[in-house]
């Protein structure tokens, strides 16, 4: 039985037929197993406060008193100084797209019809000096950014802001930010 799958142009169907998973696993030499692995991660001091902040529509970070790095997502310690980050800072949430990608590739390297557009957002952090360190940032979805924006390079440096879910839908989760979207001209 043929399975409908997106095929690249020029694909020639090989001889034979596709097996259903049940048929495949009934072949000698294949033993099916489904793992049971569930966890309840302790988010810890830093990320717990960060996640609570998201529920309130705030992006919180911590600052290293020695080197001045602002960590978003926050850490209770500076990775570079191995010192406690004692100061909390609230970031405005705005920032610029540092790098972005439009991806059509699926897990098994098949091509998808709809692309995913994701990026790393350099957040506006108080006291940040360009080039001073890696910057505070979040990896997230980009919406309102087209594949052409990304592929032409227009997306890089684009001013963006978080599109928050309505307060009643927020769960203290990074998905409380639906995505980052471009700030309309003249607003940011």
């Amino acid at each position, binding site marked *: 039985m043929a399975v409908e799958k997106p095929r690249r142009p020029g694909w020639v169907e090989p001889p034979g037929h596709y097996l259903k998973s049940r048929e495949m696993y009934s072949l000698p030499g294949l*033993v099916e197993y489904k793992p049971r*692995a*569930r*966890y309840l991660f*302790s988010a810890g*001091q830093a990320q717990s406060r960060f996640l609570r902040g998201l529920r309130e529509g705030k992006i919180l970070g911590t600052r290293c008193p020695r080197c001045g790095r602002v960590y978003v997502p926050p850490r*209770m*310690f500076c990775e570079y100084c*191995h010192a406690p980050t004692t100061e909390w800072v609230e970031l405005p949430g705005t920032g610029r797209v540092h790098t972005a990608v439009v991806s059509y590739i699926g897990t098994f390297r098949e091509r998808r019809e709809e692309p995913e557009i994701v990026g790393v957002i350099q957040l506006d952090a108080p006291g940040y000096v360009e080039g001073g360190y890696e910057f505070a940032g979040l990896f997230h979805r980009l919406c309102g950014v087209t594949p052409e924006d990304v592929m032409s390079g227009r997306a890089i440096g684009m001013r963006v802001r978080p599109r928050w879910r309505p307060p009643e839908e927020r769960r203290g989760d990074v998905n409380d930010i639906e995505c980052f979207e471009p700030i309309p001209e003249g607003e940011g």
Partner: protein
Amino acid sequence: MGVHTYVAAAHPNIVVAPPTSVGRILMRRVAIVGAGWAGFRPQVPELSFRELVYEAASRAYEEAGVDPRSDVDAFVSCQEDYWEGIAIADEFAPEPLGAVLRPTYTVAGDGLQGLAQAFMMIRSGAFDVVVVEAHAKPSDIVTLDGIYELALDPLHVRPLRPGNPLFTAGLDAVAYMARTGASRLHLAMVAAANKRMGLSNPRAPHAARVTVDDVLESPTYIYPMSQLEVAPFTDAAVVMVLASDEAARRLTDAPVWLDGVGWATEVGTGAVEFHEWGRMPSIRAAALMAYQMAGVDSPASQTGFAEVEDRFSFMELLALEELGVAGEGEAAAMLERGDLAPGAFYPVNQSGGSLSVGVPLEATGLWRALEAYLELRDNSGAYDQPRAVVASWRGPPTYTSAVAVLSAV
């Protein structure tokens, strides 16, 4: 009789390397110059594993007087991805250790195996100061049974749905008792003693004032062991700073030396049919390797005390025999004579062992080494032979063990 002959005679499967192949490596001595710990509670819900490790690391660096960003040459982390719930979890190791952009790697095994790696790195001459870390947060794992099942052979053991593979400890206990004549009473004596000794240890959340009768009367967990004879889990992080002899003398006036390390794995996990039931030859092979390096022929007379595997009560007795501290089948008699108590002929698990402290997964071996280190650092004058044997076994369903010999002189 020397250990070499004893082990070879008892276990034809253990291939004993001639002393020269290991003993020839007599380069620099390796010392432990600082140690830190955090957690050691059944649950540490207020800290992430990163924060737990950071806390332990800060304490270790403070004691050693080192800055991890400038004074440490390399880092070794010990954990397993499925315990962590993170694939490729070694990528998470550098941050809390101050090891970002520094030589770091992970040993997917017990912390004592990590200690052995650091030992080799320093002896090679390529590194002067190496940090070893191990941590565990079993309280984060919801389906511990599911994770255990993943450790069983997928083809001929998992389909039997054997439940928690801790049952293999019962198979070993029964076989050990049948062979040696050790009784349920002996096993209960181990548990009662360890639970009480842990009462003075700040790392022992499972310590309790219990009697042998309390142990015997607690509900059966895994026959022949009762609830109080099976160690519960513990969240913990342990960090140790190791240094070459030159660096150690710069950092401290009283280093504790790591004079020998050894490790071995028996038949593959899941091949339960091939295990030598009632024995743990991996402990024996690991001990032999460590003893040869440390120049130990007779552990009971050349070392002063031991911290050994006891996550099941019988394992303490079996470990002492596999380590050559007790003769074949003679550990129970030593226990009866009181030889294993603090201040006696050969104190064992004065920390309270895992029965008091619990099982912090891959941090268990490094924690046992921590207990021996602290005792040698603070109390070495109490021993004619201020040296310790540390032995760790990774627990069901594995047959991997590691042994270290520590010395205050």
